[in-house]
């Protein structure tokens, strides 16, 4: 059964899918796990967000989601701060850390989920890596649940439910989330 017919996937969609299936076809199961994980998780997630598609065509893209249209760029301690468009959890900026800084005594995960957020200040959209800070249980100062581009765990790098504490050198105990700019999305 094919997807609904009223829209066609973008070139990128189809490309990604075919890459994924090619990898899956010709490598060992163990390799598939690794490569597929990387490919599916890292590549399409932010590239397929509305922002990145529409943004490619216009010089000054506008906010492409309801969150982005209302986001602000001044208060890093509020849930509507523009970078937090897909954050789910405690703001590290309210826990002793900063937007891309972990509180003392925790460690940032080298892995993360990725969002694409619209910055109202410069009218550009950016790829945001939501790196969790780990090693202490939940810091509960300011808790947000934003879901722009949030997809289920079968698209792990677009999923904000996962405890992204792999490889921190601490326990995988979630303290708070940061939102680091890792590139321009548009």
């Amino acid at each position, binding site marked *: 059964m094919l*997807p609904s017919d009223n829209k066609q996937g973008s070139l990128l969609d189809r490309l990604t899918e075919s890459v994924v299936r090619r990898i899956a076809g010709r490598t060992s199961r163990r390799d598939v796990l690794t490569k597929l994980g990387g490919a599916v998780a890292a590549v399409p997630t932010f590239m397929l967000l*509305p922002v990145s598609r529409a943004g490619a065509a216009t010089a000054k893209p506008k906010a492409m989601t*309801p969150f982005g249209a209302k986001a602000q760029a001044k208060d890093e301690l509020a849930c509507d701060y523009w970078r937090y468009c897909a954050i789910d959890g405690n703001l590290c900026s309210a826990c002793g850390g900063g937007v891309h800084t972990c509180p003392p005594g925790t460690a940032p995960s080298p892995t993360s989920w990725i969002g694409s957020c619209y910055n109202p200040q410069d009218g550009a959209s950016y790829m945001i890596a939501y790196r969790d800070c780990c090693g202490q249980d939940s810091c509960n100062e300011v808790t947000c649940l934003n879901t722009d581009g949030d997809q289920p765990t079968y698209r792990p790098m677009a999923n904000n439910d996962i405890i992204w504490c792999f490889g921190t050198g601490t326990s995988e105990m979630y303290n708070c989330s940061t939102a680091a700019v890792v590139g321009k999305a548009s």
Partner: protein
Amino acid sequence: MSLMTLPHLCNPKGRRTAFLCSLLTGVALLAATATARADEPILQTEQSDVTTLAPWSPHTILVVDAVYQHNKDGRAYVIDADKGRLMGMVQAAYNANVTLTPDASHFYVGETTWERGNRGERNDLLAEYDARTLKITADEKLPSRALVTPKRNDLAISADASRVYVYQMSPGSGVEVVDTATHKVTQTVDVPGCALIYPWGNSGFSSLCADGTLANVSLGADGKPSMTHSAPFFEPDHDGIFEQSPSVTKDGKAWFISYTGKVYPTTLGVNATVEKPWSLQEGAGMKAAPDSAKPFEVTWRPGGWQMSALHKSRHELYVLMHKGTFWTHKDAGSEVWVYDTETHKRVRRMVLPVASPMVGVTQDDNPLMFATDEETGDFFMLDAKSGKLLHKMKALGGALIFTVAPGEG
């Protein structure tokens, strides 16, 4: 234990025992004296004991509390939903999952602890509980498990209760198969690019995949897994399928619900078949909701955490609905819309006392429906046929995210 057990305790084996014995003897002697002195022993001296639950009724349920603010102290409550009373609780630590055997005699908790609380050796555990004593009957260490806000489909049980499936993400995706007779992990099945467990029959399960397909894993008589993939039937970034979509283990029937409100009737199995989807909105006489390409349109949409429940014998699909734009798929539902899974029509619409991120129903002929208030942790028990509020438990927990009732799955 109680004063009755004194002789047993007062067999001194060391400092600690001696001390206990001393404490107890003191109390016991004085208690005896006091009782003897009393002219009218109105109240009798009482023994301490431990209670056991009656066999579970269809309205005895588990409520899973993830306790977001103190994750390591997650727990599962046993509730008598006819009375709105807590009957007991067990630990369900750090984003734990819970599943109940079809006969409601036992349940399993997949949980994670660290030896020193937030540090030290990590223990991924599958604890098996006797549902009436709430005693642990097995406490197996697992290779790993997925640490993710708890979802029903991260832990599942086969129709005959012979296997428990544990979803892992370490960080590669896999499913551990636990033999419930030996309490051992017999194998870990890699499910690359896929996630979650929708069990079917006694020896199979499906997972949803990043490429829009279903992966169908069959465990052979030799225990070896084989995997098939369905054709892709959805596009995750345009209109993802809710992980909390309901399914029935025995016959493999599933209703995969998408962010926009499409319902894909599916029969899980080696050759899983996905039917043409129907629309929640169209079933309610409205037009279907647009997908992520038109994210600003406000309409009624499914959403929440455990955003759907199924009443099997009544063929009813319960869905939490709210008014919102696309990307509000985790917003709590202000109403529950009930659909006939055969006609695809909405048969009821019930307004909740307060918007709820989760809905549950019991499987009997007079079903109860469950909801919660995220802010207060209040737990609501409603008549599933009318939506009438029957009981409310105030501040039952911190983050009540789903219920488990006998006969589900």
